[in-house]
């Protein structure tokens, strides 16, 4: 059994011991509470964490290494998604040092872009059949409304969404 050990030391003080080959779910212990992370999201967290090992110019067009600022917030978001039992579909670094997380349901998807620093805004984009449908700054309000559009467009949403 192989374990991925990752540590992120920042204001959030989180430590992960994730086994993303395991058939069982992983758990993240924060200084607040224990959060169960499923296999898909464990793998997404490991992938995001691995972006810190990229070299400058990783895309051959001058891309910058993802910043701790974007990495920490992307991981926090995946942890939040896990609490809502929502899986990450796809994640990549952005050329300016940010992180993109994509969620997908049938022909609809959401792209959340975590900016590289606090001077830039995070954004959320809704796509339907691979066309941009709507776009906003990312905050708690847009996060919840866009997630409702993705997951429960008929209005029959889980209680905590």
């Amino acid at each position: 059994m192989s374990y991925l050990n990752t540590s992120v030391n920042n204001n959030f003080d989180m430590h992960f011991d994730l086994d993303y080959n395991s058939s069982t779910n992983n758990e993240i212990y924060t200084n607040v509470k224990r959060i169960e992370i499923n296999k898909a999201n464990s793998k997404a967290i490991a992938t995001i964490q691995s972006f810190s090992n990229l070299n400058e110019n990783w895309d051959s067009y001058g891309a910058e290494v993802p910043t701790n600022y974007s990495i920490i917030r992307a991981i926090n978001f995946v942890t939040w998604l896990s609490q809502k039992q929502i899986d990450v579909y796809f994640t990549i670094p952005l050329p300016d040092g940010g992180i993109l997380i994509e969620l997908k349901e049938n022909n609809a998807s959401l792209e959340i872009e975590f900016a590289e620093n606090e001077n830039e805004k995070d954004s959320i984009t809704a796509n339907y059949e691979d066309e941009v449908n709507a776009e906003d700054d990312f905050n708690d309000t847009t996060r919840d409304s866009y997630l409702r559009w993705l997951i429960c467009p008929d209005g029959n949403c889980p209680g905590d969404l």
Partner: protein
Amino acid sequence: MEILDEDNVLRRVPTFLPNYFKPDGSITRVAFSTKKDEDGLSVNLERLTTVEKSILNPSKFKLFKINVGVVKNEINDDLDVVYNPKEDNEAHCLITGNITKGKANQLKKNANEVNLPEK
């Protein structure tokens, strides 16, 4: 140098650490997005380069081709392709204009993968 509608331009897409291909095999529009400080999207003019030269490292990148006429006339909306040679790359061009997420999506949809020639 005049860039013709018949011309094609080439763009590298990362395939390994990180991988711009999604689980369903499609590529992300980010492959056709510019950085904030860029004057345009870097591409190579196909007729002034080779696949081998443009791909740089086939174990890390795939190469995609897009037609200049499609960029200028179909995706349109102020996009242009301008010749922008570099000291180490005479084929270098820029797709200029405001490349929004929607336009990056259009560029992605109109791009076709270029296979390496057989040895």
